[in-house]
């Protein structure tokens, strides 16, 4: 199966207000194709608020309920409840950025996951508050430059998919816009299950990460091939590597991390001698992440 085999029908139309090379608009296109356009979107504050353009126009062929920053998982719970009482079998999908997910929206997300709401929550993770001008978020990786971490972030990122998985929901997955088929398959699989589903979509942002808009896919692929981003699924508490990440628990199979970092301006300072410790911390973080995955796989993938 190739990208060309995806449905031709478009649900996210051209003329929207995204930056060139925007991963969020790519993801929205794929999402529409995966679900065949029959679903409702709930969108909190973030890039996607702006990407929609201004009233009275919209690039979306599916209905969108825009909502306040912290509120998407709760609003989606209410919307799904309304569909249920009206006997409408329409999936409700949250489309939220990393700030709206791992920071300000985490409480509502946790509540909805714990209640087992029948919704699909997708976090498109561009690893900072890109919409407000590239401020650090809880998902910004260690070492990355943002306007509020001018010398590089000193803390590690939150592992949001594992936080959600700890709620023992039926389906959690990570994905990347650089692997659209993997993402589409995961959306379809999630939509086939009842209960709370979560997909964390890696979304390399040319504007915020400082790389040319033509390289979004290249950067996304490098993230996976170097092991900086991991494609996996957690189904009923069992972890499984998917797609390009399969087998990458073996460090020999991973490309050097520098191949990913050197593509982006936000990591340029890591290669100055005085910042070497930050680069080492980042490598340590990636290695520890993989050691944990390997240990999990060795005991049969059981996370919880």
């Amino acid at each position, binding site marked *: 199966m190739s990208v060309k085999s995806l449905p031709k029908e478009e649900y996210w139309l051209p003329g929207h207000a995204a930056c060139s090379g925007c991963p969020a608009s790519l993801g929205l296109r794929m999402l529409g194709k995966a679900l065949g356009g*029959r*679903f*409702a979107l*709930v969108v909190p504050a973030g890039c996607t*608020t*702006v990407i*929609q*353009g*201004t*009233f*009275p126009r*919209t690039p*979306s*062929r*599916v*209905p*969108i*309920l*825009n*909502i*306040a920053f*912290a*509120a*998407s*998982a*709760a*609003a*989606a*719970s*209410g*919307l*799904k*409840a*309304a*569909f*249920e*009482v*009206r006997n409408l079998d*329409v999936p409700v999908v949250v489309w939220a950025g990393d700030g709206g997910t791992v920071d300000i929206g985490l*409480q*509502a997300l*946790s*509540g909805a996951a*714990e*209640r087992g709401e029948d919704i699909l929550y997708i976090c498109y993770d561009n690893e900072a508050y890109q919409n407000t001008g590239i401020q650090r978020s809880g998902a910004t990786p260690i070492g990355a430059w943002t306007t509020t971490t001018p010398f590089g972030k000193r803390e590690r990122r939150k592992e949001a998919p594992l936080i959600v998985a700890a709620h023992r929901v039926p389906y959690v997955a990570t994905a990347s816009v650089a692997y659209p088929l993997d993402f589409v398959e995961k959306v379809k699989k999630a939509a086939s299950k009842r209960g709370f589903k979560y997909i964390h979509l890696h979304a390399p942002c040319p504007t915020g990460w400082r790389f040319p808009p033509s390289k979004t896919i290249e950067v996304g692929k490098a993230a996976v091939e170097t092991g900086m981003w991991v494609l996996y699924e957690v189904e009923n508490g069992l972890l499984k590597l998917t797609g390009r990440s399969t087998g990458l628990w073996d460090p020999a199979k991973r490309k050097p991390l520098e191949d990913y970092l050197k593509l982006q301006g936000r990591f340029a300072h890591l290669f100055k001698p005085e910042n070497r410790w930050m680069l080492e911390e980042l490598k340590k973080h990636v290695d520890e992440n993989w050691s944990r995955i390997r240990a999990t796989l060795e005991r049969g993938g059981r996370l919880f």
Partner: protein
Amino acid sequence: MPRVVLSGNEAVAVGVKLSRVNVVAAYPITPQTTIVEKIADYVEQGELKARFINVESEHSAMAACIGAAAGGARCFTATSSQGLLYMGEMVYWAGGARLPIVMAVVNRALAPPWSIWCDHNDALSLRDAGWIQMWAESVQEVLDMMVLAYKVAENERVLLPVMVNLDGFLLSHAYEPVEVPTQETVDLFLPEKRPAPYWIDVVDPKSYGTIASPDTYMEFRFKLQAAMDEAARVIEEVDAEWSRMTGRSYGGLLELYKCEDAEVGLVVVGSWAGDAKEAIDRLREKGVRAGVIRLRVTRPFPSRSLASVAESMDAVAVVDRSLSPGLPSVLLSEVRNALYDNGKKPYVKGFIAGLGGRDVTPLDFEAAVESTLKAKEDGGSRVEWLGLKGGRDVC
């Protein structure tokens, strides 16, 4: 009509059941809790066919109601005090989105210091959120107001959320015999079929709440104001319709007690109107021609009707259960504002009273009226704190 003994909070729950609400999202807070307990019970027992979403916060409670109302459900939530403030962002969102949500607010003071007792600062702090604000005096009125609230909210000329306010403990936990309307009566009054122009629909998809540029934003707000103006008329119409069906009328925006020949008016909101009426009876025995003006609705503010009632009065005492530090109180300024444009306007004196549940008796209301008449003659203070210990030297 069956007559049963209910608390204010139980009356809210009965109102929710009779209104055939189908999505409830709520988070517990004293003194609101018995409302959601009762509703959870109705849902579990199958007496109310609804989805009960046990949210993790008030912010999520209102967010879930917004999602549910946008999706076409008739929905409900209830809160108090800190919960209402925590919900505040979404309260504004519901108003701006013009969604016909009904919320019971069991009025309670704000911290610090902690207080679980009644005052009106919680709801009044959200007076500009685009919600209709109604205030009940009795348990019977709480029950009727719940049903009327949905009828007003869902009217296509209105489409605004409604806050039904009831005083914490004084009304929420007070038991009174209540006439419960039959389900048939409520079904006739409040049809299950609701206007659907705003419902989220996959067949005719629209994007709600997108960015409005400076070119379009003001018109949204203008329409909100126009809907409020319309709501004032609809509330009167709905009150008349309910009266025809049940024999109970509350006067729409204002309830007037012995105001026909009154020289002095006592303006109040909420459950202590009963004490105010008692005070007025005593004053009349003493030869003071006094009356009570009870504001049943503060948004839309009944400016015109208030001015027209007050123009034949020499003086008005406003006893306010709120404080707006530096102003000094919400209803006092709103009443003065409403009277200002009228050619003939009475002398107005304000009283800040009952904050954090401080007890106020009919004797206090009597004293407030007398103090107003005296201040009018000798030019005394225009604002007084009722029952303040140690007077101005309190701290």
